[in-house]
């Protein structure tokens, strides 16, 4: 992907840029709001990472200006203000996702990939079934089969599996799962998600081969045929 990073802090910028380049992406960097807005408006990027507090023009105004001009480039907002209402403001301004500082690079990467794929998925036909290896999920009848055997899932387990399947081969973080599967924005004191993943694994992976739900160290989980 070709990504534009608008971030005034050199340390954070080099950390993001280094990580993105290592993951094989092309990255442009800009430390100033005005220049950033100009570059972002060119439409040459697959995704934008914009810091909320910038010299010149602040991050939310850049997103608002872009959206007003019809530019729909997937945008991730970075901010030291990681509160829920700040997040709501960010999303209302037209950003696709919002991440509070400090963040793990894995969280940034997972969210960036999730928003970058969104338009492609939404542009296509409505997905009614998903298949990974011998695991088949019918999204309409909510039936789950693995190697021809029916698997009985609780409603929440189904939503968890559905989210992992829709984002197959991509890392999804615990926070992303909490927000998308449970629909609550909060800080769990324990890794509650891990317990639910292990229950899901018992049903989906335990008696079958190969395992499909993989733990990605320091990041989250990934559903794929190969680890």
């Amino acid at each position, binding site marked *: 992907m070709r990504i534009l990073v608008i971030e005034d*802090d050199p*340390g954070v910028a080099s950390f993001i840029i280094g990580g993105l380049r*290592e993951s094989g992406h092309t990255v442009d960097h800009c430390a100033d709001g005005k220049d950033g807005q100009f570059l972002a408006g060119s439409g040459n990027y697959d995704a934008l990472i914009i810091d909320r507090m910038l010299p010149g023009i602040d991050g939310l105004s850049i997103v608002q200006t872009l959206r007003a001009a019809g530019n729909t480039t997937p945008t991730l907002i970075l901010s*030291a*203000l990681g509160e829920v209402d700040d997040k709501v403001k960010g999303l209302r301004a037209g950003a696709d996702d919002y991440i509070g500082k400090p963040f*793990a*690079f894995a969280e940034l990467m997972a969210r960036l990939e999730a928003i970058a794929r969104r338009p492609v998925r939404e542009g296509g036909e409505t997905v009614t079934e998903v298949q990974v290896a011998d695991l088949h999920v019918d999204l309409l009848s909510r039936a789950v089969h693995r190697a021809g055997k029916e698997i009985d899932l609780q409603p929440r387990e189904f939503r968890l599996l559905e989210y992992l399947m829709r984002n197959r081969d991509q890392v999804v973080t615990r926070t992303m799962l909490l927000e998308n599967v449970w629909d609550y924005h909060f800080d769990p*004191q324990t890794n509650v998600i891990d317990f639910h993943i292990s229950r899901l694994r018992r049903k989906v992976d335990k008696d079958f081969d190969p395992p499909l739900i993989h733990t990605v160290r320091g990041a989250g989980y990934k559903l794929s045929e190969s680890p």
Partner: protein
Amino acid sequence: MGIFGSSALILVGYIYWQTNGYLEQQTNATISAEIRGLTEQFRQPGGPGIEAVIRDRITRDPSRSTLYLLLTADQRPVLGNLAAWPPGQLDADGWYRFTLVDQQGRRVPFQGQILQVSKDYRLLVAKEQSNLEATRQLINRVYILTLAIGLLLALFGGIVLSSSVTRRVDAINRTSREIMAGRLQRRMPVRGINDEFDQLADNLNAMLDRIDSLIDSVRAVTDNIAHDLRTPLTRLRGRLESLALQPEISEAVRNELNATITDADHLLATFRALLRIARIESGTHDEAWTDIDLGALLHDAWELYHAVGEEKEITVHLGAAAGRMRGDRDLIFQAVSNLLDNAIKYSPSGSDVRLEMRDEDGHLTIIVSDQGPGVPEAERGKVLDRFYRTATVTGIPGSGLGLSLVNAIARHHGGQLVLADNAPGLRVMLELPKTDSAGPASVPEAGLIRAARPAHH
């Protein structure tokens, strides 16, 4: 009201007394003047003489409003429009009072003076008192009526005045409570008539504006700290993460780096929780308030945590849960999640944790009870303080901020957090007011933390 009424009473009473006295004086003065006139006439040398004068007076007054009777020294009537000497009383001031019966059989009071005309003659001059009595009765009636109307008006005016005062004080009280509940943008109502209440409201509003600007500057400082410290911390964490991803480092170094990242994450989590509590307490979340289905929320929380309990062989039970309230859905979920997390963390394996809800006394109370070590009664208030942990939980990791955050969330919603004995274990009650659509309105004693007596079983 009372003051107004009694002063009206005193005033009318004074007027009554004065008027009565004046009327009597007037009658007395008339008689005195009559007698003076008579004396002058018959003492005039060469005048018509006393008998002629009296006869003249009587013929000029056919209605007999004034009575004359000339007597000899031995009480024999000589002349007058009165047949005989009327029996009566002579008072200390020289007034002679008596009563006659007229043609209609009515008793008519008279009052007069006795004048010693000469050695041989005495003259009684008297005037009818019934006119005076009638006037007095009329005046009495007018006064009683005036008094009654005055009292009624005083009562009515008092009610109107005091209800308008009550209304305005109520408005100020209501606004104060809303402000205490965190709606810091609210201001006292000003009517624009510049009376004492308006002046009070203006002063309170000026004070609130001043406090508001102070809070704003504190908030700006907090936000700046958040920005200024989080950015270098992000950088630090990023560096550690980049190092841990280097392929050439040994496994031991990688483990050490990952442990350091975990430490940094702890530090950051504590920092984030502190900032979060501060921001919730300063009441900046109002725009996130919605109508919450607490039953569904508790079910979600139970579902999320009973999987956690299973791992420790702790059964999380969900009891009665139904009710709606206005609030911040994510914060309420955060509070319930912290309570369940604590209950599971401090419970022995094989025990039960119970999540339920009660709707009583105008409160919706979310109750989480466990069979763990509990909290000694003396420490129940303290565990809500930041960083306070009881001696019984020293071996279990925790920040000491979990309950502080729940407490801040309870106060933010105008509720309170109450800890009680579950015998054995701890029972935590998150009391939330049933708010109407106006948001946080009634919060008189809200925010007071009370350590409850042991719960009844």
